């Protein structure tokens, strides 16, 4: 029998205060656990509610801190009601709160009261990608001129190593425009229902950048990040969008700091 199973059986024979205490923490309809009380026989309903409130409010606050544009779009009352449902349905499994909220965009997509804002889930996905880039490992990006040293006949075989912060995101909505407007301090004007926008998220230094990817750019970057050589990634992009501009896309990605290294495909197996 595994050690932890032995230990929890042992504790079960004593008193599993954690199981008793947590049973009602995310469920406001449950009575406080029998295991706790106030002093001198005082009741523990409001006392236990302090913990329940701390848990729920602090986790809603954590989502509000991670999804500020989503919050600004919906307003705080709408956001906090939506977040409360999510917290109770999907509390965090990691003690690192900046990891919390990975399932929140999908929840928003299903959330009954957000159906009139079909683009809201993508804004939240954009914010999640931004936060991942913010905390990603630091690395020196590949210099813009790095490809100049590769012989032209070898370019198609070139494979790129993505920067740890780089993320590509595809959207049916103008997500970059909406995100940018709601993450700045200025007033948000009316955003017309616009063209779909794919996004590139990078953090070459300390600042996270979100850019609009040109047509075919998202599939191109997806393929490169999956380790496909430049030629194959470009072919996939052309197949999706005939107007795909290879030179502009490569230049844009390098300038944004999307990669840390480039090498020939046949060098791949070197230790």
């Amino acid at each position, binding site marked *: 029998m595994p050690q*932890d199973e032995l230990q*929890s059986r042992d504790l079960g024979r004593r008193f599993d205060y*954690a199981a008793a205490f*947590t049973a009602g923490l995310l469920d406001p309809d449950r009575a406080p656990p029998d295991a706790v009380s106030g002093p001198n026989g005082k009741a523990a309903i409001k006392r236990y509610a302090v*913990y329940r409130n*701390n848990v729920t409010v602090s986790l809603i606050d954590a989502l509000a801190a991670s999804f500020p544009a989503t919050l600004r779009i919906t307003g705080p009352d709408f956001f906090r009601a939506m977040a409360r449902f999510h917290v109770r349905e999907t509390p965090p499994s990691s003690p690192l709160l900046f990891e919390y909220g990975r399932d929140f965009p999908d929840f928003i997509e299903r959330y009954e009261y957000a159906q009139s804002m079909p683009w809201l889930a993508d804004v939240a996905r954009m914010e999640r990608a931004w936060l991942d880039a913010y*905390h990603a490992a630091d690395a020196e990006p590949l210099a813009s001129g790095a490809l100049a040293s590769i012989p032209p006949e070898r370019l198609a075989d070139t494979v790129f190593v993505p920067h740890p912060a780089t993320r590509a995101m595809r959207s049916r909505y103008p997500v970059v425009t909406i995100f940018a407007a709601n993450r700045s301090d200025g007033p948000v004007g009316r955003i017309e229902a616009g063209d779909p926008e794919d996004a590139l998220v990078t953090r070459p230094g300390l600042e996270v950048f979100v850019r609009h990817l040109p047509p075919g750019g998202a599939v191109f970057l997806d393929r490169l990040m999956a380790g496909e050589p430049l030629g194959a990634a470009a072919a996939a992009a052309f197949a999706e969008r005939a107007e795909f501009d290879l030179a502009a896309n490569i230049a844009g990605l390098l300038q944004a700091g999307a990669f840390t290294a480039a090498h020939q495909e046949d060098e791949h197996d070197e230790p």
Partner: protein
Amino acid sequence: MNGLAAPSRMSKTSRFPAHPVAGLAGTSFKHEHLPAILGDDPKGGFFEVHAENYMGAGGPPHDALTKIRRDYPVSLHGVCMSIGGPRLLDKAHLGRFKALVDRYEPALVSEHLAWSTHDTTYYNDLLPLPYTHATVSRVADHIDEVQGTIGRPILLENPSTYVLFPASTMSETDFIRELVRRTGCGLLLDVNNVFVSATNHGFSALSYLADFPLQNVGEIHLAGHAAQEDDEGDLLLIDSHDGPVADAVWKLFDVVIGRCGPLPTLIEWDSAIPDWPVLKAETAAAQAILDRHADSLFGKAHAAG
């Protein structure tokens, strides 16, 4: 003052200056204050950070903490190790904690007598435990494991609580004293937590302090609290960290420092965070009390420092 407050080892490969923390007042480090802090001259005091906020791989948090650590003593305060929980410690989390200790060489390292994770859920609050012979053994094992992993003693913080466990067979101070005896850990005395718990459970804060193993304290916390009512309509204080330190807590702090000498003292202010000058003034008020006792107890403070 015991020796636990000092860095346990200063290796030759140290990346940062030693920056002793003895006798200093400090405050929680908040990123929005970084530009103001970097502009401060002269630089004084110390900063405490919640360890979990620096457990990402890279980016601005590590850049900021590196800058702070270059100029100041840093206290690494763990919030979610679940030392007070019944389950085994999370090895991955412990590994991340050790990596931070190794990387930033903090002057102080602390954790809570509480728990926050159960099974697969992280509750993001400091939850209470019953004080029994069974739980004291388990918590002591957890402290041993943390100290063994990071290679130095930790300071364990007394909790603020809102409920009691009728199953408890030991007082909180007896429980804490027994943990110190078994593990050799030091203590982080949160004076606001003493005041909050004393109010909530109807005991005397001064009696608690008289019974507390003050000789093992390596750091003090001070913070603001909020007021609610319990089911009987009596005052129930909440450890909210969202305002200035209450007058009653300042008075208790004065009593503690009068007995212990000038211990490193932190102003915790974690929500409704004020502008830097407000926080700095609160820290200066704590420093004034530390300095007054350092002057009147000069020989004792000098010997301890």
